[in-house]
């Protein structure tokens, strides 16, 4: 088991002919992901290493049987691409694109809820179920199959954590980057119940950062509803207030959203919090009863 993606995921790559889209389509395929189609409007009929390219996502669903989509199109086209995938009938949409105007996401999130379609991102690295399927941009070789679920608002910081888990001999069930924007399709609160229900996942690493209150809400859920151990980490302890730290959502606004508040909320919920990234490995080993 794993969550959200596995061997049965049939992926369509929106923006497959772009620089990033083609590079990562090849990388995902090399990992074993079933890439059944690509979409670039106007390039229908062409192919990329044998993967058929269509003009629309609808064709990718009807003719190639796609049930999930990953989006590598620029921010001004991405909102339309997300809706196109939802209307075409895929069940999971992963939006890698960074830079979508926040208010554009508001009606999209509502529409996806009505259609019961899951969106991961935007502004995210995607997700990987090691040994089964990778949908996104993460370097595959740092992952290994195993019992730990990873959920994070960051991209490269997630790779850092996963790398440490793997070098500590601890594999992962699914690693999911939920994205660094203020409004995202899938939050900690959506992912944690999936990990709790997944028989393969025995423990969870949750990586948060400054801005918003998603970590505090997650802490409450973990305390009251989860039986599996969770280890936390929060980035941005040295971040100055009022400045957007790269991610659109990583900002301490009006004195709230600080790393200290989040670490305190996790601590009060009984969740061990790593002070530095390299403490995550030992804390998870302990949580799994390995040391």
């Amino acid at each position, binding site marked *: 088991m794993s969550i959200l993606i596995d061997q049965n995921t049939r992926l369509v790559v929106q923006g497959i002919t772009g620089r*990033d889209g083609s590079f*990562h389509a090849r990388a995902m395929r090399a990992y074993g992901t079933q890439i059944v189609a690509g979409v670039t409007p106007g390039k229908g009929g062409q192919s990329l290493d044998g993967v058929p390219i269509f003009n629309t996502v609808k064709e990718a669903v009807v003719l190639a049987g796609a049930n999930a989509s990953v989006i590598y199109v620029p*921010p*001004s086209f991405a909102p339309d691409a997300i809706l196109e995938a939802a209307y075409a009938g895929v069940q999971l949409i992963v939006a*890698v694109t*960074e*830079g979508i*105007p*926040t*208010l*554009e*996401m*508001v*009606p999209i999130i*509502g529409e996806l809820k009505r259609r019961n379609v899951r969106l991961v991102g935007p502004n995210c*690295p995607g997700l990987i179920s090691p040994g089964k399927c990778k949908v996104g*941009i*993460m*370097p595959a070789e*740092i992952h290994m199959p195993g019992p730990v679920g990873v959920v*994070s*608002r*960051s*991209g*490269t*910081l*997630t*790779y*850092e954590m996963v*790398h440490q888990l793997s070098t500590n001999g601890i594999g992962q069930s699914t690693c999911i980057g939920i994205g*660094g924007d*203020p*409004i995202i399709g899938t939050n900690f609160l959506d992912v944690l119940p999936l990990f709790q229900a997944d028989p393969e996942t025995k423990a969870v690493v949750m*990586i948060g*950062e*400054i*801005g*918003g*209150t*998603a970590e505090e*809400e997650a802490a409450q859920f973990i305390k009251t509803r989860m039986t599996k151990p969770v280890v936390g*980490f929060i*980035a*941005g*302890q*040295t*971040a*100055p207030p009022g*400045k*957007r*730290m*790269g*991610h*659109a*959502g*990583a900002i301490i606004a*009006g*004195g709230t959203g600080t790393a200290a508040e989040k670490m305190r909320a996790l601590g009060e919920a009984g969740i061990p919090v790593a002070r*530095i*990234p390299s403490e995550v490995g030992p804390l998870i080993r302990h949580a799994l009863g390995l040391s």
Partner: protein
Amino acid sequence: MNIHEYQAREIFRGHGIPVPESAVAATPEEAEALAARFGGRVVIKAQVHAGGRGKAGGVKLAQSPSEAREKAAAILGMQIKGLTVHKVLVAPAADIGHEYYLGVVLDRKEGLPLIMASREGGIDIEEVARTNPGALSRYHFDPVAGLRPFEARQVAFAIERDGKVAAQIASTLQKLCAAYVAADASLAEINPLIRTLKGEVLALDAKVNLDDNALYRHPDLEALRDRTAELPEEDEARQKGLSFIKLDGNIGCVVNGAGLAMATMDLVKHFGGTPANFLDIGGSSDPEKVVTAIKIVTADPNVKAILFNIFGGITRCDDVAKGLVEAIPRSKVKLPIVIRLTGTNEAQAREILKGVAGLTSAESMDEAVQKAVALAQA
């Protein structure tokens, strides 16, 4: 992006919000002339990207044009939260009957814009939200439909019982919501909104913060950017697609990804050093970005060592390596560089960097940070 009050007033006026007449002065003489034009009794307000201007002495009342000149002279050039005041806003003093608060922010949890309204305005609203949340009325609205008249009335009557005044507040609130959506704002605020002694509702202040992601479709708003309010390095970084924030330490950090960049800064602090900056070279690969990053980081005279922490994903390590090879000979400042590269095309990157002088390599993040801290202290 932050804009000034006088610019936010223009946006509000464009949406029909009742904003009293006002103008901007860059010298005490200009302020005096404006005061004369406005009838003598005026308010002088510092135009800086900082809250708490009143408490800092950046807002003053003047009874005459000559007093306006003196007050403007005192405010112009003063520092508020580290920012120099270059301009003041001059506006006729209002006869305040009552002060309210109206604001629109993004509620990240609900994924919707949120109106906050209070019967008591002219105060620190963040403080009220913390200490007396009951005094704030909250209402979510749909940005596509806009705030409907009945919704606006509902909020207005929650803060004002008088029908005539509430109708004006409701109308102002609808326009504020429209302005928030049209500008792709992350915050739009009137603090205070007032009722004059004659029962007229007026916006005495205007604050708008804009969503950086949406500026590409608002060239008119991008043009409001005040380049004197940010450091030249921050300006250059933004134009080159890098995210850079200057801090006061001595270890220059060059990292890919915002989360890893923050964690790297935190780790520098953990190991006894101080980060000189936050710098995210971004998700996409481009050797030119590395060249710019080195230039920006070395422009800070406090920097004693440079720390590269790259975990390749969409960023390819070989592109970063190519950028380094290009940047090092071009850089005038020779500083020790500690480099840690892991992930996509890591092997190619190692090959490219083989034999490049002045580089200390590290396998792990802990090792890289500890080496950089040691080099900065040497």
